[in-house]
């Protein structure tokens, strides 16, 4: 079953074409990896899926629902959560609060109920905390629960961002370079977690990754981009041995 389908996506910034007629589809339950050299348009694609950018042409569907023109804050409700390449955490809040923001899409009560903090809000809050504790268990974040995020090391923050995205219980998880800036050990942990996310939570993962080892370890399917267009799509081996991909990464032999 196809979960995410991108059809002929094109993004132009003035004269620059960042993404050129990109089409692909992600099957439900897959770990789908996008690779490509710097400036290939990978993050631009992610920003399209989270509706921070609007495509100049083409459309995007999640489970058959067209979300090409959906406002950005509705994307989470649709079931897409993401992390950011350079971390966009709420630095002045604790880890717990950060994760709880991930639950924002489940808010059902109005402003008035909140000013009185009635039973409905209480129950919703307790429910949120139960859900968040599951993620804290899963990612082993107990030690940091009440620590301010700004005070934590980069590797931990990276995990917290992953946790925050998981808290929104998405159908599709977009990971923008989950292993960048991590040491070998942390990066390996991330790899296992990504596999667990797929197995235990049944979440489909779409990720951008530069670490070829991690990519090979987890990916079911790989898409290679260069200068905004698709170079190759297929299994890890197929893409890695694709002549054009090798050329894009290593250049042509003179």
């Amino acid at each position, binding site marked *: 079953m196809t979960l995410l389908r991108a059809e002929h996506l094109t993004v132009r910034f003035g004269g620059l074409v960042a993404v050129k007629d990109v089409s692909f589809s992600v099957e439900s339950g897959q770990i789908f990896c996008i690779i490509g050299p710097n400036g290939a348009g990978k993050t631009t694609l992610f920003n399209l899926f989270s509706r921070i950018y609007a495509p100049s042409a083409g459309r995007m569907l999640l489970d058959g629902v067209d979300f090409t023109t959906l406002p950005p804050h*509705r994307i*989470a409700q649709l079931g897409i959560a993401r992390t950011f390449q*350079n971390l966009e*955490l709420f*630095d002045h809040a604790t880890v717990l*609060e950060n994760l709880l923001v991930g639950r924002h899409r489940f808010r059902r009560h109005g402003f008035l109920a909140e000013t009185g903090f009635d039973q409905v809000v209480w129950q919703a809050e307790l429910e949120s*905390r139960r859900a968040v504790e599951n993620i804290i268990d899963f990612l082993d974040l107990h030690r940091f629960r009440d620590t301010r995020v700004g005070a934590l090391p980069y590797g931990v923050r990276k995990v917290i961002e992953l946790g925050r995205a998981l808290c929104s219980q998405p159908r599709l998880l977009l990971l923008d370079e989950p292993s960048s800036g991590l040491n070998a050990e942390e990066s390996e942990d991330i790899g296992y977690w990504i596999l667990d996310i797929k197995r235990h939570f049944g979440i489909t993962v779409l990720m951008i990754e530069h670490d070829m080892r991690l990519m090979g370890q987890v990916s079911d399917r790989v898409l290679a981009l260069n200068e905004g267009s698709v170079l190759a799509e297929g299994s890890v081996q197929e893409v890695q041995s694709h002549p054009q991909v090798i050329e894009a990464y290593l250049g042509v032999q003179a």
Partner: protein
Amino acid sequence: MHFDFKKNYRIDIRLIKRGNQAFWYGLLLLGLLLAPAVLPKYFVAQMTFILIYSVIGAGLVVLTGVTGLVSLGHAAFVAVGAYAQAILMARGVPLLVSLALSGALAAMLGLVVGLPALRLRGLYLAIATFSFGFIVEILVSHWESMTGGNSGLSVPTPTLWGVAVTGALFYYLCLVVLVLCLLLVLNVLRSPTGRALRAIRDSEVSAQSMGVNLALLKTYSFVLSAALAGLGGALYAHVMTYLSPEQFGLNLSIELLMMVVIGGVVWLQGAVLGAVFVIALPQAIAVIKDYLPPAIGQQTGLQPIVFGLVILFFVLVEPTGLYGRWIKVRTYLELFPLCPGSVFVRERHFLRTERLK
């Protein structure tokens, strides 16, 4: 050293987290209740001012400290609340109803101002709200049929069930209003909305991708803040008994902003501490004036200079304000003698990446 053993989630969510908190806040409330019986009239009047400023400050904490939006036009909301109160009371509207209406009117204005605020940030928002403050001030001084213009408007004595609410009674009214407002804001801040507001302050783009409707919540923050300012203004009208446009100029806006910065802009306690400070400082200056050499003591503009120095001091040395300093002192005492000096070192960000716009 105090450890919190959390046995269930409720401990985290409820307002009073520890037994000793209940004790100290209870004691404070008791002291405030007994104050009019013990203290001279003049002190009670000053404390009434503090309560009113705290109501306004609570709104500014929500807007500036929690949501991260700056307003240099908050005096305008106070003015709208104050004039609405005076006009409604003169038309015979009951006290409590007119208080609510004044707050609601200011909230509606907050909605109007909140809309451009969705597109503006930082300095630009400050300028926009600054001009809004001017517009309201000019409107008030020229709409003579309603506001009395520059010649002013007298405020009727408030009555509740036939009893004149002045002096100690008015102090109690302000106290009740403040406590209710603080509870309301505390509830908002511990709910998903409060977290979403803090999320907007720290990173708009990721708040949005977590499902936070930026436009709605920023507007909400403005509306809530304006409503509290309007309510504070309505109470303020009764203390002043006579309203004129120049009371609500830029000076007041800056004084209010300064108040929350000095108190500690991210905490509600900061708003109250700031109010105490802002009301007490002029008194302290007036007292000290007589002991200073005449060259300094008789200088015109001594008060603004001292205010300026104080705010400079806080911005440079203690940006977390009085309440932030108090937290540090308290932690130090709790950990004593094991508190290393590095505990409170402000973290510096060496990694500054260009944020996704």
